[in-house]
């Protein structure tokens, strides 16, 4: 009944892609030295689920391919097949292949049959031999202080089988030095306690060279009567249980470390429903319209007598509050944690580090920081490029690092945090850092315009100039320097900014600042001629009416305004927007000081109208990009008002004055 089942296809594909993501993340977490039953089970269940669904809905190619992976995982989870890195890598390739297969099935396009056949054969081959662990290159790390940490929590009925935890501890103590500490937990009072029930749980530390098998053996009889977790005490370089072949297995050093402030969430049973993004977007549009209508009502009400219309005005004020809250709540539905973006990087770093022959660890901080979905979608590519860049050009290989007295394993850090009305994202590495002299030289060589005296920050910004690249060899990993200027442009298109900082020899950090959402802006409305323009409040520093002696003309360059000890270029918005009407001298107008990308400019306007939150509307949807304008909004009276692109003004004018 093919027709009947088709309605489930969409859900099947969504689930399957989610399962693939889960499987991939779990595969990357696996450490061959530790038999992490739960993680392996997660991967198995993911494969099992995909296979089942594929078979049910008639996607036989998917089902058949998945079957092989599932078999391998089943052996692994039951302990019949020892964990080995080649298997994990093969399963990662299987995940990729499945991605392609599922996508082809969903879109009705052709799958990459060659890849499918190749990986499937590899899976079959792996299944036909027992897991072979190749001698892995050992890292020059300090010999591990071995030992085990054991969490042992007997079930209450443990005594009834005649077992006794003390017996187990004695057996463990025969393997090495044992320290046992009860886990603090609430105990019943002596009179209420049942002597036949086990209330206690312990954390045990066992020193010595006992193997996992020997430790596990002590708990053999009580396996199903307790919660047990056995962990090696030196996780990074653990010499796990000696494999049958007698070869020492050393874990490859790609681990994702979570910083202390983000606790990995265990499966939260949160109730949720799937909602299509079109529905959310429609909702946001409607709320936007509501905001505009409410602003219009408020404006009309200003003409009313407050005494006679007290109730109406109170009502409107209440409406204002309610609308604001509704707006915030609706915007929040589109907020997703940065995790959505960060999650693809462990895989990327793993694969790329492998390809480049470098040792890299990835640290992520602040994955729970939330950001609007539309911004998240657009920040993904720039971040991708920056991480690749760090990996490719920033980080040195192990020999160079060790020679420089650094840890052989390089670190890339991805950080996200809220700061005021913005989100700050950092991509940092502890590599060789930026060489300002070299950058300047290269810029001059490439004909990139540079000032006579540039600060270090300004020199670093040259990296974002089009056509720039200081890589000794241009690799196909991060491109020919066409990347960085596109990265900066993309970030600016989001209303954000990007800065570079570096300590030569110690590393470099790229800091991206973005508005939390693309749709709403806190604006200052200003009047110029007949028009009203909106200035993003976050760029406004102050406004003033300059005194005649503060205004100076600079030959051939324009006018500057002296504000305290700074001379700022003056931009008459009438000129900028080619508006009709007579020009007024600055000292008879109002000047608003704005800042973007670390530079300031003074804007001449006719009057300050007010401050309000505006819903940003796209000009480009039906028209095209307009120079100096970052968007439009609809005012309370229904008029369209243009939003000034402060960064564009700053860029154009501060350059011309500096030159």
């Amino acid at each position, binding site marked *: 009944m093919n027709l009947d089942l088709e309605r489930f296809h969409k859900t099947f594909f969504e689930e399957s892609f989610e399962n693939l993501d889960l499987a991939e993340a779990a595969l990357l977490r696996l450490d061959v030295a530790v038999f992490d039953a739960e993680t392996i089970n997660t991967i198995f269940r993911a494969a099992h689920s995909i296979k089942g669904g594929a078979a049910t809905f008639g996607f036989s190619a998917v089902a058949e391919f998945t079957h092989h992976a599932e078999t391998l995982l089943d052996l692994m989870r039951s302990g019949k097949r020892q964990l080995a890195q080649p298997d994990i890598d093969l399963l990662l390739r299987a995940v990729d292949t499945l991605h392609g297969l599922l996508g082809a099935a969903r879109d009705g396009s052709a799958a990459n049959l060659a890849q499918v056949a190749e990986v499937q054969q590899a899976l079959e081959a792996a299944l036909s031999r027992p897991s072979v662990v190749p001698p892995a290159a050992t890292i020059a790390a300090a010999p591990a202080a071995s030992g085990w940490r054991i969490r042992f929590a007997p079930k209450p009925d443990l005594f009834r089988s*005649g077992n006794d935890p003390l*017996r187990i501890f*004695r*057996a463990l103590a025969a393997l090495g030095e044992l320290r046992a500490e009860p886990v603090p937990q609430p105990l019943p009072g002596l009179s209420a306690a049942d002597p036949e029930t086990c209330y206690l749980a312990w954390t045990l530390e066992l020193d010595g060279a006992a193997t996992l098998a020997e430790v596990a053996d002590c708990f053999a*009889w009580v396996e199903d*009567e307790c919660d047990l977790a056995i962990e090696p005490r030196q996780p990074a370089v653990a010499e796990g249980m000696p494999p049958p072949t007698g070869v020492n297995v050393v874990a490859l050093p790609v681990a994702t470390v979570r910083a202390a402030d983000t606790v990995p969430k265990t499966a939260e049973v949160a109730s949720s429903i799937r909602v299509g993004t079109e529905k959310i977007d429609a909702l946001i549009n409607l709320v936007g319209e509501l905001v505009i209508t409410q602003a219009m009502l408020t404006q009309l009400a200003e003409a009313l007598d407050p005494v006679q219309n007290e109730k109406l005005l109170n009502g409107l004020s209440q409406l204002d509050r309610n609308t604001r809250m509704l707006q915030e709540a609706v915007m929040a539905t589109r907020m997703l944690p940065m995790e959505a973006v960060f999650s693809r990087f462990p895989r990327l770093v793993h694969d790329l580090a492998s390809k480049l022959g470098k040792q890299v660890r990835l640290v992520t901080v602040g994955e729970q920081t939330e950001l609007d979905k539309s911004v998240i979608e657009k920040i993904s590519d720039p971040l991708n490029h920056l991480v690749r860049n760090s990996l490719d050009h920033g980080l040195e290989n192990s020999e160079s690092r060790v020679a420089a007295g650094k840890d052989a394993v390089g670190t890339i850090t991805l950080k996200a945090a809220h700061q005021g009305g913005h989100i700050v994202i950092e991509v940092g590495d502890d590599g060789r850092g930026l060489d300002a002299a070299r950058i300047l030289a290269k810029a001059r060589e490439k004909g990139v315009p540079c000032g006579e005296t540039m600060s270090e920050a300004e020199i670093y910004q040259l990296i974002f100039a089009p056509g720039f690249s200081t890589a000794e060899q241009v690799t196909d990993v991060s491109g020919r320097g066409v990347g960085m200027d596109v990265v900066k442009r993309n970030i600016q298109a989001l209303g954000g900014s990007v800065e570079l900082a570096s300590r030569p020899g110690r590393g470099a950090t790229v800091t991206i600042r973005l508005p939390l959402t693309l749709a709403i802006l806190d604006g200052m409305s200003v009047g110029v001629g007949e028009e009203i323009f909106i200035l993003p409040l976050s760029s406004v520093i102050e406004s003033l009416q300059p005194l005649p002696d503060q205004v100076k003309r600079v030959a051939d360059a324009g006018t500057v305004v002296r504000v305290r000890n700074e001379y700022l270029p003056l931009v008459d918005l009438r000129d900028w927007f080619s508006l009709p009407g007579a020009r007024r001298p600055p000292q008879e107008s109002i000047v608003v000081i704005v800042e973007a990308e670390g530079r300031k400019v003074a804007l001449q306007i006719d009057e300050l109208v007010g401050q309000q939150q505006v819903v940003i509307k796209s000009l480009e949807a039906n028209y095209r990009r307009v120079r100096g304008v970052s968007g439009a909004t609809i005012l309370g009276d229904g008029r369209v008002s243009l939003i000034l692109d402060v960064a564009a003004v700053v860029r154009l004018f501060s350059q011309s004055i500096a030159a």
Partner: protein
Amino acid sequence: MTRILAVDDSPSMRQMVAFTLKSAGFDVAEAEDGAVALKMAQAEKFGLVLADVNMPNMDGLSLVRALRGLPDYKFTPLLMLTTESTPEKKMEGKAAGATGWLVKPFNPEQLVGTVQRVLG
């Protein structure tokens, strides 16, 4: 002195177990099937019972179940001596109330080691 009860329908097996444990300083009594063992267990309190699984009159699992029903044997270590070590068999034993198992064939050192672990 803790007394051990060894239950097995194979005389040679019984004798091997008894001899090994006595040499290690333990006090051991023998029974040739579950029914006899149960009677003996009711007459005196043993500190440990080692029982084969396949026996006539009353097999090992039934013996363990019966013993667990006796107030004196609620927490007594009861070990199965079994040729099979499949997870299913182990589950069966645990379900009946057994403390653990020893897989045949075992050598004397393993036997003594396990008993010493259990009895302290």
